[in-house]
């Protein structure tokens, strides 16, 4: 129990340790607060590729008085006005990056009201987007995006599924482990200027280490103590909360980027993605293939699958179950960290709650594929990735694309709870 207490103290002190490396908590950009005597107008400049910072807009009132605002790092801008009424918001197109332009009118009229924040959204698109307007092209682009998302999800969900298979634990802190990869990437590569390949490798190693540490200090002693699965699940919930706020403590509530420069874009046929996306997909495929090979061909991989299938039987056949589980935790967290780092690169930004956003997708993917099977996780992730990216093209409003994943999950549980590749044992 001393180990557990020690780990806990470490966790409590870790924010102080990380302070050495993190920047001092800077002031968050002033946010406009509507009240009974003030109204707000706010908006975000976002293209299909992501947010667009450093764009100037002009807000003109009915009398002709104009004010200028600039979008921040997160693409957001806001303005507080003292009078209700009509305002014209115009985007200064010459402040847009070269490959981005407005996709409709560059100015709109809005009504400001006291006590309210009125949104003013001027849609912009990257030049690549302007050219590919045919439905088929949209489908292909979305499929590519879906494949990309699916691969990243697969990296994280394989670990999640294996942890479930070998220990029976649904790890709700897994999403934060993914976030950890991105945040560490920011700290090492952006803040400390490490080369991206060196930094990336270091991130993966560090994340793997957190997995090893967790099993050594917490999970194994707790398993030995006979703690039930429900209790362990709640421990992961607590861990998830602590991690989220540790991220927020050290990095703040803003979105941070791993690489400072804007990514360059490459076209392959109808598909346009950043170079980083292609590289990320390539790395994912290689790593997933390696994991798959290891599971199928190596002794330890077979042992892992055996333990995942039936721990008691595996143990009786002479497999050291504890060693296998330690390995699973280490590799799973390393994969999750890699996934987070790639995710941060691909979406060009990571936040303290980025993990939260994909937790839903991770669980949907793992359940869809079959809780406990690594290949199921891969298949499920690809399907979920495609569903999420294709649903806006096929009619679902953009805000709800994550909701589609949940709907699929619920429908699946009604029809085939063991997932696509899971065994049809009695699940209830």
């Amino acid at each position, binding site marked *: 129990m001393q180990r*557990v207490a020690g780990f*806990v103290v470490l*966790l*409590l002190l870790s*924010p*102080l340790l990380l*302070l050495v490396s993190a920047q*001092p*908590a800077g002031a*968050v950009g002033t946010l406009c607060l509507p009240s009974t005597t003030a109204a707000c107008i706010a908006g975000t400049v976002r293209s299909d590729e992501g947010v667009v910072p450093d764009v100037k807009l002009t807000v003109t009132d009915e009398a002709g008085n104009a004010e200028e605002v600039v979008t921040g790092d997160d693409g957001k801008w806001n303005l507080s006005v003292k009078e209700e009424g009509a305002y014209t918001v115009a985007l200064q197109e010459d402040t847009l990056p070269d490959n981005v332009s407005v996709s409709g009118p560059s100015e709109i009229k809005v009504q400001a009201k006291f*006590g*309210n924040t009125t*949104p003013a959204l001027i849609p912009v698109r990257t030049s690549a987007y302007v050219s590919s307007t045919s439905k088929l092209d949209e489908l292909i682009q979305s499929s590519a995006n879906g494949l990309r998302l699916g691969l990243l999800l697969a990296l994280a969900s394989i670990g999640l599924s294996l942890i479930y298979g070998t220990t029976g634990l*649904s790890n*709700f802190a897994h999403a934060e482990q993914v976030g950890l990869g991105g945040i560490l990437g920011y700290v090492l590569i952006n803040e400390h200027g490490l080369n991206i390949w060196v930094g990336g490798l270091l991130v993966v190693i560090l994340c793997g280490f957190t997995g090893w540490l967790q099993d050594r200090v917490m999970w194994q002693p*707790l398993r030995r103590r*006979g*703690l*039930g*699965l*429900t*209790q362990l*699940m*709640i*421990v992961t*919930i*607590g*861990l*998830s*909360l*602590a*991690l*989220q*706020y*540790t991220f*927020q*403590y050290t990095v*703040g*509530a803003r979105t941070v980027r791993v690489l400072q420069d804007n990514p360059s874009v490459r076209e392959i046929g109808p598909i346009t993605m950043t170079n980083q996306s292609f590289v990320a997909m390539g790395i994912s495929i290689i790593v997933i293939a390696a994991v798959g090979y290891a599971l199928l061909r190596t002794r330890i991989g077979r042992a892992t699958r055996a333990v995942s299938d039936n721990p008691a039987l595996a143990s009786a056949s002479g497999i050291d179950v504890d060693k296998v589980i330690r390995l699973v935790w280490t590799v799973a967290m390393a994969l999750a960290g890699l996934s987070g780092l790639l995710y941060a690169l691909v979406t060009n930004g990571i936040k303290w709650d980025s993990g*939260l956003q994909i*937790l*839903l997708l991770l*669980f*949907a993917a793992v*359940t869809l594929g079959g*809780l406990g099977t690594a290949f199921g996780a891969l298949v499920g992730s690809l399907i979920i990735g495609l569903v999420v990216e294709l649903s806006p093209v096929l009619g679902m*409003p953009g*805000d*709800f694309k*994550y*909701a589609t*994943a*949940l709907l699929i*999950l*619920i429908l699946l*549980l*009604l029809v085939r*709870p063991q997932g696509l590749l899971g065994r049809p044992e009695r*699940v*209830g």
Partner: protein
Amino acid sequence: MDTLQAILNSMLREAISPQTAAVAIAAIGLNIHFGFTGLLNIGQSGFMLLGAYGFAIAIGHDLPLIVGILIGFGAALVFALVLGAPTLKLRGDYLAIVTISAAEIIRYVGRSALLTDFTGAAQGLQGVSYRTPFTDLSFFGGGDATLSPFNYLDVAGGAGWVRLLGWLVAIATVAGIIALVRGATGAGVVARRTSVGALAVVFVFLLFFLMPANYQNTGVNGWWVRFVSWLLVAICMLTVFLLVRSPWGRLLRGIREDEDAIRSLGKNVFAIKMQALIIGGLFGALGGMIYVLPSSVQPDSMGRSLTFFCYTALLLGGAATIFGPVLGSILFYAARIMIKGVANAYIPDSIMNGQQTEQFSYIVVGVALMLIVIFRPQGILGNKRELRFNV
């Protein structure tokens, strides 16, 4: 001394705030789900948000207060049905996954720009749009009041020894209550109950004596909303007491223990679990309505963290008990404020600034949850033998 008093004052204010009461009610609902029936619902914030939206939107469209409340309840009912139907026949993990996801979805839907007319999107609904029918009911009148009017400042000018003495007496009353409840004295049941009641009243008076609080009588966040919310907490506790001591409550505990055994005795386990899910969800919706009364309906402030707070409060106080969720909520919020206050007061800004103390207090919450579950799963009031949670 003054900083200490300020921290204590803020702790008391937080302990009696309507948001604490709201979380207490939501934790009571979670107690029915998790404490009594063993359902792992990690989406209680979804129930709260739905209750809040239903209530606020209905009243915002000029429907009467009662209708607003019913709509809030109705939304929670439908939510429970949609979540329970596919998952209650399956293993507990599936309910956990589906509820955590569904609560996020509710938040996304609430934030979505599509429904701005209804939900106010990410900015949410301003309190003023739905608070009026509630404040109109107040019979407290205008002005403000201090509780208690006779406090430490009236005795020897609020000197330090008065407060010290007061705290010693307060601790003594708590010790007395604990001793009586554990049956250390030989007194009979009736004598014990009346003594515990009397000591509790004395204790509460002492709290207000040592940490007086001043609020408006009605207003946005005054005594009226506090009174109503804590009254509702008492009513909820009573309801749970009635439910749990009945054969239906016995069924819940049996299901938590072993579903197959209960099935083999001829009980419809699915229906009962669904009923438990719905009842707990209704409590959650009520909690959500109270949560937003003094402030506004903001989807981002009622997300997953709120569910985790409910769990921490529930497990801290003691799952599967009547007073546990309430005690846990009060202690949880008071402790968090204490951590924040102490950190703010004694740790210089250069190491930990204001926002960071807030975040630090949340980190402590997460770690506390882990520790409670590992070392003392029955919390403060729980029954150790009953709550080993061994699956």
